[in-house]
């Protein structure tokens, strides 16, 4: 495996893990969304690495574009929920009023 594929994989997986950490370490919804975005960058890098290794960057490009579109719609929906949550309940703290136990 060539060096740059390794680098891509390394950074991709790292960003993925950092993203997941951000999602679960913070209580503020907006930081959690930032975590989702970082995770998405990681996934893009991993996909790119796979494409470079196989030499079919164009095919992977199509997948990445689709992925970006999907994640954008997801981000829009989550931001809408965040906005409404703040407007109505005046809190962006995801553990607030936690009546529901696990």
């Amino acid at each position: 495996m060539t060096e740059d594929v390794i680098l891509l994989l390394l950074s991709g997986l790292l960003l993925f893990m950092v993203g997941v950490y951000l999602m679960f370490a913070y209580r503020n919804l907006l930081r959690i969304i930032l975590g989702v975005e970082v995770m998405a960058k990681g996934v893009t890098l991993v996909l790119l690495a796979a494409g470079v290794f196989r030499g079919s960057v164009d095919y992977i490009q199509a997948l990445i574009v689709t992925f970006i579109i999907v994640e954008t719609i997801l981000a829009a929906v989550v931001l809408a929920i965040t906005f409404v949550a703040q407007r109505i309940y005046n809190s962006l703290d995801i553990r607030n009023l936690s009546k529901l136990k696990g």
Partner: protein
Amino acid sequence: MLLYASLVLLVIFAILVCFFKDLLYAAVSLALASVMLSAVLFQYGANIAAVFELSVCAGLITVLFVSTVSMTKDSDQANESRLPAYFLPFILVLFLGLDFFLVKWLAGSTLVGAGFPATPGLTFQNAFWGQRMTDIVGQVSLILVGVFGILTIMRALSERRKHD
């Protein structure tokens, strides 16, 4: 060389997102990370993906995020815990360790050979409109889900709401 620089900057900006107390700075850092990712994509000739990454992630998502931040200004952001940011360096070491281990493992093992090599002359056009057409119906539906979803959520803001 440019590639390695972009990659390193990408990782740095993405990790920096955690360290900014002000959400706006964090959003900017994320946007810069997207720009770097876009540069990386360009390096490999994934031009269309790079443009998408630039305009959508660095652009649209940042705009959406910043507007949400500014519209939700008066909530309990002040007493936000800084602990995760302090823990991050240690956690990073852990992640890097796991990361190196995984990638070393992947690099060392034999991957199933040539398998299905890329077909020559496969442009993005062919790939997207040719092979991935199945996703297009999906994407149209997704856009509808987004539209109806946001309308549903926003209806909470209208005056007349029946209660359960």
